[in-house]
């Protein structure tokens, strides 16, 4: 099952390179996505299928990420077909191949219980997503791709060094070196603390760069701003979730070594700093796609903050991974539609979207309310759990700052979003024939409905899964 999830999308990517028709090729994405989701459901039903060998297996934490990524890709793939049919003037050969290869590589990262293999897979996702950012081939997109590659590669190289430090901390503690997660968890108490802490810092900086935590987030607004909307959704919900999983692995090992307090302090600090940075840059932001990028920085901060606080907040963070990914799906896909209808992403020109694209604009507005934690959407539940966990465990300062930053973000993001949605279309903006179609409007709508349903009712299996993941992380 693991091999199917990993190799099938890679095979589809190969097929995309040889299929000549620009119109038919995008349909390969839904084919890969439907099969991936179907296999994921089969795996969920039968625990026997969750272990392939000692390197490739699922645990409750990676299962959450697998469901998130599979669900995100499922809907995004249909949107991609709609989007690429509007862009038939340029070849989508590498776009389809890269997107499909991404699905295979992120699946490998999710299944890996060998941290070296996981690194290889995550680095792979960086490389295959670079051509996606470059799809528009404008000067700006070259710049964004260059920054993404350079900053991302250096970050991920530091993560590799951190992985090696981690393996070496076992040797320095007199144990055998290994990068297998379960072996690391057993040897953790004997590891050399100095090497282990250095490893944690390097991995936090390295995978934090991939997640886009401040101050390593500099590539993010450029990449998300210039990439097509569907790529933004995949980056903000897929790539970041994979890197978050890698950080969770490291957090688990450090906790097993008895240094959880050290890790928590750093995570709480990074989380709050990311939220603060995002809040500052969201005020007066006139590019609505960059606003979404900063919102992603903010939510990555919320995730690591939740992990740093632990307990109920950790539960909230694990639920938030899923909620963030699906809500970002609504936001990026509807923002992509609005961008196409205006050929601009500056709020000076993009106004009155409700008149031009009633459905997409409404989804954009609803997505904003969801991501900022308004009830009854799912992110309200996850963010409230984090807040509850913070105050319940005596993190009063962190909890208050969390609330304050959420408020600033709500106001800052709200101004930009309302400017886009409300009012009249400025007269100087040229007329557009672009209208919502089923393929481009249904996926963001479905994401929003998912987030809404999960906000009202969390199925018992999901609740149990997250609870199991929390106890798994607590060893």
């Amino acid at each position, binding site marked *: 099952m693991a091999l199917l999830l990993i190799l099938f999308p890679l095979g589809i990517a190969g097929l995309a390179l040889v299929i000549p028709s620009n119109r038919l090729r995008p349909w390969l994405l839904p084919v890969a996505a439907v099969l991936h989701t179907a296999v994921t459901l089969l795996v969920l039903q039968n625990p026997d299928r969750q272990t392939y060998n000692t390197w490739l297996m699922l645990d409750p934490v990676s299962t959450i990420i697998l469901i998130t990524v599979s669900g995100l890709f499922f809907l995004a793939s249909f949107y991609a077909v709609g989007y690429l049919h509007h862009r038939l003037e340029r070849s989508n050969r590498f776009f389809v191949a890269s997107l499909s290869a991404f699905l295979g590589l992120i699946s490998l990262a999710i299944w890996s219980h060998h941290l070296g293999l996981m690194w*290889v897979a995550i680095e792979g996702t960086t490389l295959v997503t670079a051509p996606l950012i470059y799809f528009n081939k404008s000067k700006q997109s070259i*710049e964004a791709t260059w*920054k993404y590659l350079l900053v991302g*590669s250096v970050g991920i190289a530091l993560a*590799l060094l951190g992985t090696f430090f981690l393996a*070496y901390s076992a040797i320095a503690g007199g144990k055998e070196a290994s990068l297998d997660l379960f072996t690391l968890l057993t040897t953790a108490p004997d590891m050399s603390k100095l090497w282990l802490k250095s490893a944690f810092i390097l991995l936090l900086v390295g995978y934090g760069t991939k997640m886009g935590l401040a101050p390593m987030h500099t590539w993010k607004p450029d990449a998300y701003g210039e990439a097509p909307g569907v790529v933004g959704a995949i980056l903000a919900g897929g790539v970041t979730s994979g890197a978050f999983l890698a950080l969770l692995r490291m957090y688990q090992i450090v906790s097993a070594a008895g240094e959880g307090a050290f890790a928590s302090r750093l995570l709480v600090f990074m989380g709050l700093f990311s939220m603060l940075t995002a809040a500052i840059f969201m005020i007066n932001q006139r590019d609505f796609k960059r606003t979404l990028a900063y919102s992603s920085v903010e939510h990555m901060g919320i995730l690591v903050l939740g992990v740093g606080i632990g307990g109920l907040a950790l539960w909230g963070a694990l639920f938030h991974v899923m909620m963030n990914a699906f809500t970002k799906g609504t936001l990026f896909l509807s923002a992509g539609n609005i961008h196409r209808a205006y050929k601009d992403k500056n709020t000076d020109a993009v106004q009155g979207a409700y008149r031009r694209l009633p459905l997409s604009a409404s989804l954009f507005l609803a997505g904003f309310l969801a991501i900022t934690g308004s009830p009854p959407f799912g992110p309200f539940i996850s963010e409230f759990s984090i807040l509850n966990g913070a105050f319940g465990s005596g993190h009063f300062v962190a909890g208050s700052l969390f609330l304050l930053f959420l408020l600033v973000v709500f106001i800052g993001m709200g101004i930009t979003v309302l400017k886009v949605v409300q009012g009249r279309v400025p007269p100087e903006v040229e007329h557009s024939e672009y209208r919502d179609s089923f393929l481009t409007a249904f996926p963001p709508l479905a994401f929003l409905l998912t987030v809404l349903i999960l906000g009202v009712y969390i199925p018992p299996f999901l609740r149990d899964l997250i609870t199991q993941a929390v106890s798994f992380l607590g060893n």
Partner: protein
Amino acid sequence: MNDILNVLFVLILTLNLFALGNGRILSIIRIVAAQGVILGIIPLLMHSELSIPEIISSAAAISLKAIIIPAMMTKALRDVKIKREVEPLVGLLPSTIIGALATAITFLAFARWNTAVEGHASLIIPTSISTVIAGFILLTTRFKALSQVLGYLVLENGIYIFSLLLIEAIPLVVEMGMLLDLFVSVFVVSIITNHINRAFSSLDTRKLATLKE
């Protein structure tokens, strides 16, 4: 055997400083290639008995780091018709001095705090860290896109040196995966540099400055 190893580690450190002090991009490509050859040989000398996976990984490392990647970089350099790094952020001599100081400090600090470490590790770890730092200096003080890629390659070489300590923890499949990632990243980057050159008529990354707040 240990004497040869010591000489090779010193050579790696010297090559770092040569890379920092050289303005011709082609020379830096050759320096990085020479480092690649040494990195491939070291694991063969570290063990008295050679196993098949070790030979495969050495052969793969040498062919990638010393032949394929330098060839790709040389081609990219010829395509963009530039020869040297003009006006780096920090001059060539100062950056060499900074690199040398960083190397000295790394070795001193390591000798002071990690007296317990024995054998190869006492040399491998500080060499690795100094090489990572040299790569980082190249990466941050040069403006030409290709020079920055070379900085990344030196940094990557430094990390590779550290992996020599962990042979039992890194199976062949994973090691091949790491080399494959390196190959693909240089491949993607050389395409992008070519596009940068066409779109901006320059490889100066300071021209990549339209996207900001």
